[in-house]
């Protein structure tokens, strides 16, 4: 279980590192991925294995879902992706399974790969493309990268444009004085929040809110006392509700010692969809819209 913490810490470290800043080449069938690796293909890819959920979502959003011949085990959106054969991803990435699916390209994140794995895949004649968005800008680049990979750059452009306009086209915007607290894991398992460098932080600042834990980097375990002392105006939890016991919102409202907080008094507690709000996928727009609705009303 401690391992999980290490993984999260590693993730935070990676978040800090940032990623390649080069614009991917749009011409022909040579693409530069997000670690500046140049990949040449004879034609647009038609057989793809995507290991991260967000890349699967992007493929489907571009109308290229049919190119998927394999997906990471945690890919679950849209529903159609469930019929694609699932392969083990992450630290236990199953190379034999992937090679057996005979893809032309494997799309993975920086974290989900080791040098040995990339080498083994290259030796099997499979191109490895890294899509590793750490912010909304990165998501645009991921979309462009995947678009050019499957020969759908126009659709990719359109998708990015529509996302941009959704983010910018808002009626009201805060002045950065109101604070919002994102809760990644509930009290029962130790409080974890999303600090700076996360999508939640970025979405909040897009609508003029200040992340109450902007001094924290990435996802981190924080002190309950600090949450109470910082007294945020809004509380957003991304806990899942499993249909029994108190809902995540009710549980937060009922916490001992939290009753005097502004957000609790005003009933400003919201349960966001954890996948929408934490994945670098086009659905960040949905997360943004529901968050906006929660803060400013419909």
């Amino acid at each position, binding site marked *: 279980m*401690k391992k*999980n913490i290490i993984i999260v810490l590693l993730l935070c470290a990676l978040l800090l590192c940032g990623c390649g800043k080069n614009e991917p080449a749009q011409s022909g069938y040579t693409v530069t991925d997000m670690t500046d690796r140049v990949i040449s293909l004879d034609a647009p890819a038609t057989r793809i294995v995507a290991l991260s959920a967000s890349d699967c979502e992007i493929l489907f959003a571009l109308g290229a879902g049919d190119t998927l011949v394999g997906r990471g085990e945690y890919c679950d959106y849209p529903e159609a992706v469930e019929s694609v054969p699932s392969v083990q991803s992450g630290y236990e990435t199953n190379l034999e399974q992937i090679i057996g699916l005979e893809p032309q390209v494997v799309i993975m994140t920086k974290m989900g790969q080791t040098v040995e794995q990339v080498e083994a895949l290259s030796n099997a004649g499979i191109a490895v493309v890294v899509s590793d968005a750490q912010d909304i800008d990165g998501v645009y680049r991921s979309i462009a990268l995947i678009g050019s990979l499957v020969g759908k750059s126009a659709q990719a452009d359109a998708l990015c444009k529509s996302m941009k306009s959704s983010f910018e086209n808002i009626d009201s915007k805060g002045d950065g004085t109101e604070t919002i607290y994102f809760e990644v894991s509930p009290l029962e398992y*130790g409080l974890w929040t999303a600090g700076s460098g996360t999508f939640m932080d970025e979405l909040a600042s897009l609508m003029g809110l200040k992340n109450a834990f902007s001094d924290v980097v990435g996802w981190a375990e924080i002190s*309950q*006392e*600090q949450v109470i002392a910082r007294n945020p105006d809004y509380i957003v939890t991304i806990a899942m509700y499993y249909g029994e016991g108190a809902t995540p919102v009710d549980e937060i409202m009922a916490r*001992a*010692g*939290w009753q005097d907080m502004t957000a609790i008094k005003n009933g400003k507690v919201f349960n966001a969809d954890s996948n929408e709000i934490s994945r670098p996928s086009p659905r960040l727009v949905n997360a943004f819209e529901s968050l906006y609705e929660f803060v400013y009303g419909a």
Partner: protein
Amino acid sequence: MEHKGGKKEGLSVLTYIALSVFTLVTMLLCVCLGSVSVPPDELLSSSIILNVRLPRVLCVALSGASLSLCGAAMQGLLKNPLADGSTLGVSSGASLGAVLAITLSISIPSLPFAGTMVMAVLFAFLSLIIILSLAYKLDCSLATNTIILIGIIFSMFASSMISLMMYFSSDRLRDITRWTMGTLSGSSYTNALVLLVTLALCAAVILSRASELNAFAIGEDNARHIGVNVRRERLIILIAVSVLIGVCVSVGGTIAFVGLVIPHMVRLILGPNHKKLLAASMYCGACFLMLADLVARVIVSPLELPVGVVTSLIGAVVFVFIFFRSVRSRHA
């Protein structure tokens, strides 16, 4: 000093007072200090203190006392200085029980956490029985190496069972185990009360068996020869230890190091006599875990460290220090 007359073997009243005062001071310190600083005049009215910090400090103190007591009892019972909930696989067993309860949705109506707790206690006890009977089959003298080896193997088995269950079960379990099995950060007064009652009952059972534990610590055969009902006493102590570890795990997750090292340190200072060792271990365990938790809470504020990281860090250093000092004084 106090037992020079040979009549009194336990701690003197003065020692008890000193230990109690030290524990209370530590507790006060841990309540006053925290990630958020509260002005002294608001200490008694602050919601942070009353609703967040105090219940947590209480739970931490009670867990520390419980784990140390269990460690001391098992180290004596098995005549094995390496015995502890974590080294024997009892904690992993308890975790397995808790996870099983969550997977099978075993719950007792109106007592939401009781299902997990009962399963944790049950599995802690089952693990102990399995580990000990395996060890007996292999080596009836219950040698240190055998028992630790089996404990480690059982720990691994329990962990892989948990992973296996996570693999096949709902997202919910994946969620629960992702953030370590429980933590003391969300402690409530209810948790503290449960711990207090359990500790009071089990400590009464264990402390009243100080003579028996002394006999076991000298040797099981010797215990039998002087008239200890070996089978019965061992079972009673094992049950008390399992209940205590099971409840601790279900409230605060597995905290390593406390149960192993605190009794060891106390033994180096006060000697192995359980009439002193058990009570002193409880006090020291409570203080140690409270201080470790304090460090975990404040050192990287507003972030929090898992308390296990701190217990291992401080514990290892303090242990080496005491160990060297006691070796040197023995040679001097």
